Structure formats: C-alpha cells, structure tokens
C-alpha cells in the first residue's frame, strides 16, 4: 500500500530553527492536518497561521523566503528531506512517500543563516559581478536589433539563461564551503556586507556563475568581455577548484547542463592561458 492511499489525518514537519546568526539551532516539530495536494509552502503558511508546535505550545512563526511559488524566482530554496530544492514545487504527498509520516526542513547549508529557513545568498550575486555576467552594450539608445542568431545557438543559450540563482548547485557542491562573517555590534548593514564580501573573495565561485560566464561568452557582443571572464575563472576560487563531483547538475531544478558549462570553461581557460603565454 502506498503512503498516499493510507487514510492520513495529519503529518509532522520537523524544522531546524535558529533565532539569529550566531545563535544555536534546534529542531521543532509541527503537526499539520493532512489535505491532498499540499506543497511545502502551504505547510509553512499553515505553520505561520497557527504559531503552535506539535506539543501544542505557542511558538514564533517559522521564517522562510518565497515569492513566485511557481519555481521561477528561486527564493524558496531549502533542504527538504535531505535534498536541496524549492519548497513551492516540493509536494507533500510525494515527500511523505519518500519518508513516511514526517517531512524534514533545514536551511541551505552553505550560506549564513539569517533566521530559521532564511539564508543570505548575496554571495551568489556578487559572484555574477566577478564574472561580468552581462552584455557590454554601448548604451540604451535605439541602435537596431541585436546580432542575428541561429536556432541552434539560441537553444544552447536559453537553458543556461534559465538559471534563477537559487543556489542548489553550490549547496550540493563538496568544494563550496560556507563563509560567514559575524556582524559586530553597531556595525551597519553595508559595513558587514563589505567584510563578508572580502572574506569570500578567493573562495570557490561555484557552478552557477561559471555557467553564466559561458552563457555570455557564447553571445556575439557578450564575447567581447570573454577574456575578462576567463581571467576571473582562472583566478583564486576559479574553475580549478571544481572537483568534478557532478552534484550540481544532479540537483539543478532547471536541469541546466552545468557540467557541460564547466567542461567548456575548462577548455576556454586552458586555451586562454596558452594564448597569454604566447602573447607575452
């Protein structure tokens, strides 16, 4: 008999909670009345509304991030039953089939925890800046259409461009480690962020920004910054850190061919390095 055909009245959700950075974490369990077709977001909404744990004790609502609820914004990423994914597309019926009677939620493991399931992923956006993930157009005036492009090229770029910077790839990556700089008393938000950025400067970029570098190197105008991107990928925390575990591609919710991008980046940086020797 499958779990979904069992007559179920309720199920438990075990959540790893943390009040603030630097505070200890603890598990808290919530009991949710069963309904068919729930997702983890609607479970968290119910928890917020009841603010009571499985023992019936009043508790603060669990903090979590979300926005689109249709797996296109990347906000609601967390570790669900041990696997990093979006909570909107994590369906309760399936999760209970995976693990009878209980669902386990944890914050992502490679980012500083802000509170409960909320983490700070600004490092990922800073990495996009490092690899200059943009097309360097002259200006925003009217200069006619962009470069013509074959269907083949568009079909190669489009999947890479679907990356929503959710962080699943780096959370599952053994080479990507957490960098957390504790906030000093009376330190401003900006000062703290600056120290955090400094601390992660030579840490691994991770699969997502490497793939973005390849996306822009593939574009006719984007390629005008190809050398800058390859320099960034050859520097500290660059492509050489990748240990080829291939976890990234396995967890990517958009099925982006991340390992193909990494392999391509490997080839491009090698050619780039040789070219630099001869250009000297």
């Amino acid at each position, binding site marked *: 008999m499958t779990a979904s055909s069992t007559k179920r009245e309720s199920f438990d959700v075990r959540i790893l909670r943390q009040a603030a950075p630097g505070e200890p974490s603890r598990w808290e369990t919530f009991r949710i009345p069963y309904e068919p077709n729930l997702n983890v977001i609607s479970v968290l909404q119910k928890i917020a509304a009841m603010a009571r744990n499985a023992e019936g004790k009043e508790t603060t609502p669990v903090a979590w991030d979300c926005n689109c609820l249709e797996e296109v914004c990347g*906000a609601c990423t967390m570790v669900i039953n041990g696997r990093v994914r979006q909570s909107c597309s994590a369906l309760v019926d399936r999760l209970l089939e995976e693990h009878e009677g209980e669902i386990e939620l944890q914050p992502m493991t490679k980012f500083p925890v802000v509170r409960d399931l909320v983490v700070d992923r600004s490092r990922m956006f800073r990495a996009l800046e490092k690899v200059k993930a943009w*097309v360097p157009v002259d200006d925003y005036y009217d200069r006619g*259409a962009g470069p013509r492009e074959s269907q083949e090229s568009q079909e190669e770029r489009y999947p890479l461009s679907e990356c929503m910077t959710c962080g699943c790839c780096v959370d599952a990556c053994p080479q990507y480690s957490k960098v957390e700089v504790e906030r000093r008393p009376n330190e401003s938000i900006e000062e703290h962020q600056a120290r955090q950025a400094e601390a992660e400067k030579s840490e691994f970029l991770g699969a997502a920004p490497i793939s973005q570098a390849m996306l822009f190197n593939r574009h006719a105008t984007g390629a005008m910054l190809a050398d800058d991107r390859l320099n960034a990928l050859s520097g500290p925390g660059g492509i050489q850190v990748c240990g080829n575990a291939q976890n990234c591609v396995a967890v990517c919710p958009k099925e982006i061919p991340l390992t193909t991008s990494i392999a391509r980046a490997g080839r491009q940086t090698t050619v780039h390095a040789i070219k630099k020797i001869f250009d000297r």
Partner: protein
Amino acid sequence: MAEQRVLVVGGGLAGLAAAMKLAELDIAVDLMSLVPVKRSHSACAQGGINSVNDTTRQLGDSEYLHFDDTVYGGDFLQHQPPVKEMADWAPKIIDLMDRLGVPFNRTQEGYRDQRRFGGTLFKRTAFAGATTGQQLLYALDEQVRRQHAAGKVNIYEGWDYLGPIIDDDGRCRGATAQNLVTMEIRAFPADAVVLATGGCGLIFGRSTMSMACTGSAASRSVQYGAKYANGEFIQVHPTAIPGADKLRLMSESARGEGGRVWVPRTPQDTRAPKDIPESERYYFLEERYPKYGNLVPRDIATREIFNVCVNEGLSVEADKQCVYLDLTHIPREELDRKLGGILHIYEKFQGVDPRDQPMKIFPAVHYSMGGLWADYERTAAGGLMPGSPRNHQTNIPGLYAIGECDYQYHGGNRLGANSLLSCIFTGLFVGPCIETALKSLDASASDAQFDLLHRAERSKKEMEHKKLLEAPTGGENPYLIHQELGQEMTKAATVVRVNDQLTAAIEKVAELHERARKCSLSDTGVWTNQNVMFTKSLLDMFPLAKALLKGALARDECRGAHYKPAFDMPGVESTDPTERRQQAELWCDKFEEKNRKWLKTTIADFDSKGDPTLSYEDVDTSLIPPRPRLYGIVGGDIIESVWKERQVKKTESGAQGVEKPANGAAEVSRDPVPANK
C-alpha cells in the same frame, strides 16, 4: 548643493529599466526592493512582448494599429497619448532587449520569431520560450549589476518601502523604508522617488501574483495623499492552474501556439478526454467567436469560461470548476521549444504531462489595470513630450509611478504581452523626464536643510512600528484575516459583479479592517520578524480593497474587465430588417449615453483612516474615437454599420461647425497637480 539622487522602489522590469537608464544619464540611483531584484514578480510573465515588426508591417500592421488594438481591447478607458507613445517605442524596445542578449526564439534564418496573442489578428509577440518575463528581467538585472559594479547604482535588497517623505511645500524629498532582516528603519533622501512596485493581487488572497504583490507601496503612498485611479479594473486571467497556495498562470501563449479550450458536451463526461470524439466536444470560444477563436481578449475568454462552468454546468469536474486547455494535437518537439517553461510548471505541480493530457484550468486574478494616478504631457502630434517632468509624476511632485503600479496603459482590460512592454517602456521613458525635474530643483534632498524632515519621518515610522509590536493583544490572526479578505474580494469583485454583493462586501471589508487593527502578533521580536511585516502589509491592503469595491459599486456599466450583468447591453436579436435597424439605432444611443456617463477615469482620494472618496476625470480619446467593442456580439454587423454611419455624419457636421484646435484635438480637462507645490 549635495549630489542629487533618485530612489527607485521596486526591482522588476520597470524599476530596473528606470535604474539603468538613470545610471546612463549619470544620475545617482538607489534601487530598493523587497526581494533580490532577480526574484521579482516580472519573472513570472510567460508569453511574450508585443510590437509591430518587419513581418507584420508587410501584412498591413503598423504602430498605429498596435495602439488601436490596445485601446479597443482596453475599452477606450486609457488616455490615448501615453498608449500611442508606447506603441511607437515598442519595436525599438524589443531591439534593445535583443541587444542586451535576451535569447528570443529564432526563425530558421536567425531572425526573431513571433507568435500571436489575444486581441489582435497579427503575430506581434516576440518571445523567449515560455519564460519571456524571466528572460527580460534577467537582461535588465544584468545591466543594473553592471551599473552597480561601475558604482552608479546602490542596491538595497530586502527593504520594505514605508512611505514618501513630503516637505512643507508638498514635494517628495525621499522615502522611509525598513530592512526585513535587521528591522532597521531608515530615511532615504531622494530628489525623486519612482514607485515601480507592481500590482495588488494579494488583496484577493490567492492570485497568479507573487507574494510580494501586496499593493502596500501604492497604499502607503495614497495614505500620504497620492491619488489612485481605476482601482476597480482588475484583470482575471482566463487560464490558471488552481492551487492551495497560489493560482499558477498558464500563459496565453498556450492558445497563441494553437491550444484549444473545450468542455465535453455531456456534463462531467467520465471518459478520458482523448476518448471523447470531436463531435462531442464543445469548443465554446471557437464557436462563439469565429474571428478571434481562442484568442479573444482576456476579459471575454474569462467570462466565457466562468459562464460555461457556473451557468451552463459544463465544468469538466463535478466538485471543481475547470475546463480543458488542450495542446495534445501539437507535436511534442514544437511544444518543448516554444512552451517548455509553462509545460514544466504544469507537470511539476499537477503531476500530469500536458503533452499527453489536456490541462485543467480556471480563471484567476492576474493584473491590476488600475493604479497610482500619474500625469503626462501631450505633444501636438498626440504622443508624450519627451523629457517632460510631468510624465508619470503622481499628484505629489517628485513622486513618480511606473509599471503595473501606475494606471495609464491598459484601460479597462490589458491585452496579453502588453504588460512587459508597458513596464520596460515606462522605465526607460521616465529617466530623461526625471533628469529634467532634477535640473529644475535648486536644492538636493541630501542637503542639511532637510535633515530634520528626514529624521522626523523616520521617528514617526519607528513609533508606528513600536506601537504595533507592543499593541495589546486583540486576539485577531493576521493570516486568517487575509484569507477572509481574499475570499470576500474574490466572491464580490472578480468576473461578475452585482451591486448587492458589492454593498455587502464593502461592509464586510470595513469590518475586517477594524478587526485587522486588533491583530495579535505571534512574534514580537526585533530580528527578521516576518509576522509584523506581514501585518503591516495586510493593514495596507484595506485602503486599496475599499477603493476597488467602491469604484466597482459606483460604475453602473460594463467596460472591459468590469462586468455587471444588470447593465449589460445584449446585441440585436431581431431578424426583421427594419426592426434590426431600429434596435441597432437604440443600441448605439445607449452606447453613446453610457460613454457620456462612464467613459471616465475613477479617481480615489483617501482620508487619514484609509477610506476612499471617488471623483471622475475625462479620458483623452482624441486620437481614436471610442467605438463599440463588438467581439462576438449578436448583430454586431448591423450595430457596426449604424455606428459607422453616425461617425461619418459626425465628421461631416464637425467639418462645418466649430473650428478644431490646431493639433486636431481638444485638450481635455486633467486633474491638476496641487497648486501649493
């Protein structure tokens, strides 16, 4: 004078376009957003972006026809100059997005491919798979990141706008905002504040909108005196996937690529859909609207789907309202290439492959046509005056509104694939307008003379926050009140509107507002307190909800998405030629009367408690005279011919009569910016 700066609130398409354009003009920009800008709601837009293009042009299309389709589809409720300007800019905007690297789908030869969307007979819509909004958003996000790297844009992600800061002369000099993590409240000095904060779908509880779309930024501005326009015009999208937490959009592009909407002719036929033969399927849109078929404008498709389920009892399922949206006749490879993104959503959330089985869909609240009232300056040719500081300025000088949170472009009903266009257009267009505005100021909001003003407003917000945290427990639960508000609004103010129900809803919503003031917080902490931030946005939903209901109750007519059966004008039923003509004449008389009375923008002003008072403003229809919207109406042909004869007569008598102004159109009265500016 200290350096002047602009605060852009909202990091979707409109906000990002404005930030990047202002940065290009060398104006210091602070960009503020609730979520990391890359996670903004624009990412959810699926189908595409409209403009006349090289191909449609050769089939007789033009910017003017795009403009015409937009105002006709919107039932003529828009001021026409902004719409004309937008249609004129459209091809250039798509070219620019193409240069920025958006992976638009391509033809074999490598040109941008286009598909057809609702409310037009031309293939005007450029697209990037079925995640066009995401792709456009990312392209702008990348440019803003580039401007940030160049030191031209400061980005404040995770900040909630609390309201404008207005000086004694009534000019906006910045805004207050609160950090969602640290809960710090700050005053941001700014010489112009641009609101690009999107729609207010969360007022309806569940909708196709993202969780950030509470309308709170607009509401917090109207509570400082900004006017809100056409609040009652809410688009209900015909095709969404019902869900417990959200109604997920199923793009119009599914129909644009050949998707067909149907129900079994036998109510709740238990056979599998593919076992039901063609003859026993009711393709109700195709049958009733032979010209546009499945691509009638959204308001019409929505009403038909609602009608077939609710009134005709033909819902596919007995316990749930839904109809089939069928793509199974289209080759899989083509579906994957053109619609992959949305099929993936259906598959993931419903566990059914829409390439094999028709999807089950039902209408859902989708877009706010109404929004903050904003001004414009018209040229003699009928477009917008480039660089005029009036364009997109609200009635509060220095406070601007662009994107979905303004009211200007879509009138009574928005055409599909026009919203991405209006968002990017307004973002780009407003840049030089603000540049002019800044030049005319003889001070900077960052000057010492405004310190006191900023500090006072910040303290006020800190007090309000503290009061909310310390409020005596009234026992009300903000999440449950939100659910009740959503149910009430969905019942009374979506597809079909009835005055008795609206009156009852007004009372009920007022009651909920009172109860919401007595919310007990389950979290009174000072770190990442989502409970208190949600309660604040809930409280701010009420002014807009009230304006929406009041506007809907007052407007005794049918126009665009606003449908009141009691005031519907059925077509011409008679078959006798003389009688038909008489009925058509009567119909046109009634239509003219209705326009005299209701072809007006609803304007809401709010008192200190957030209760709205309504007034009305004439609409500038000087470029394209309003005409009956005759999609599928019985006797449409005779009505159209009578209407055309009247127009000819009018033009002839107009030519003999009073001389027209030089620009060929009368200046209409517009709500002036307060004289105390």
